[in-house]
């Protein structure tokens, strides 16, 4: 039950899809690959899809906040989408949605960020 990570670039948006469990053990690898993606690809905004993430603890919150601050510092946006009820409890308790935007679906998040069409998955 470890973490699987998928990065997809759509125009100037990096989509990060997380699946499985995000705990302290998984954070350093995730942080590194996420940062690499942000620097290698010419992306501005980030969409984090948590649909298939069924566990996260406060170490995961630390990584989310860290990336959020980086994206925000360069004047861009990070949107969370499709969160599961299990992970949502943690986000609600920590007040994460007072700072990060949450939307229902990845396609809507992309639309908000001005990505034209997302028929191709």
């Amino acid at each position, binding site marked *: *039950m*470890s973490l699987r990570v998928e990065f997809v670039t759509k125009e100037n948006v990096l989509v990060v899809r997380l699946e499985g*469990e995000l*705990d*302290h*053990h998984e*954070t350093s690898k995730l*942080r590194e690959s996420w940062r690499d993606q942000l620097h290698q690809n010419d992306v501005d905004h980030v969409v984090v899809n948590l649909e298939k993430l069924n*566990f996260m*603890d*406060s*170490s995961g*919150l*630390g*990584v989310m*906040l*860290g990336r959020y601050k980086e994206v925000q510092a360069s004047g861009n946006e990070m949107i969370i989408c499709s969160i599961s*009820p*299990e992970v949502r*409890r*943690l986000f609600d*308790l*920590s007040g994460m949605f007072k700072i990060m935007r949450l939307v229902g679906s990845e396609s809507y998040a992309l639309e908000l960020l001005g990505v034209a069409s997302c028929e191709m998955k």
Partner: protein
Amino acid sequence: MRNEMTLEFLSVSENESLARVAVAAFISQLNPTMEELTDIKTVVSEAVTNAIIHGYEENPHQKVMLSCAIDGEQIEIIIKDEGKGISNIEEAKEPLFTSKPEWERSGMGFTIMENFMDKVDVTSEPDIGTTIRMMKQLTSTRALCN
């Protein structure tokens, strides 16, 4: 019914998932709801991670002790390390407080434990170690009996 288990493991981060899966499997005999199970897994993950990164400062040769007891629908979880200890427990418990901001810690561990459990006792002494004792009464099974 009363039941009890203990688990001792090396302070390596691979064991964070082991600890929460073991506790989840052990308490599943009480038929917890999804939400209760997630809460328990989260607090175990928080306390074990703290023992590894704060208590033992990632020294992989130390041991973390975990025990879990159930009595009726009452769950007691104890997680213990013989590491660095906490000098100011009140400060450590404050939301967002972390002694390791450079590691991207959120400082929400204790806040999560206190919110997801009914009771959290912290016993700690510098250079002796830290013991976290957490209690939670399940409500699901009781509702079924009524």
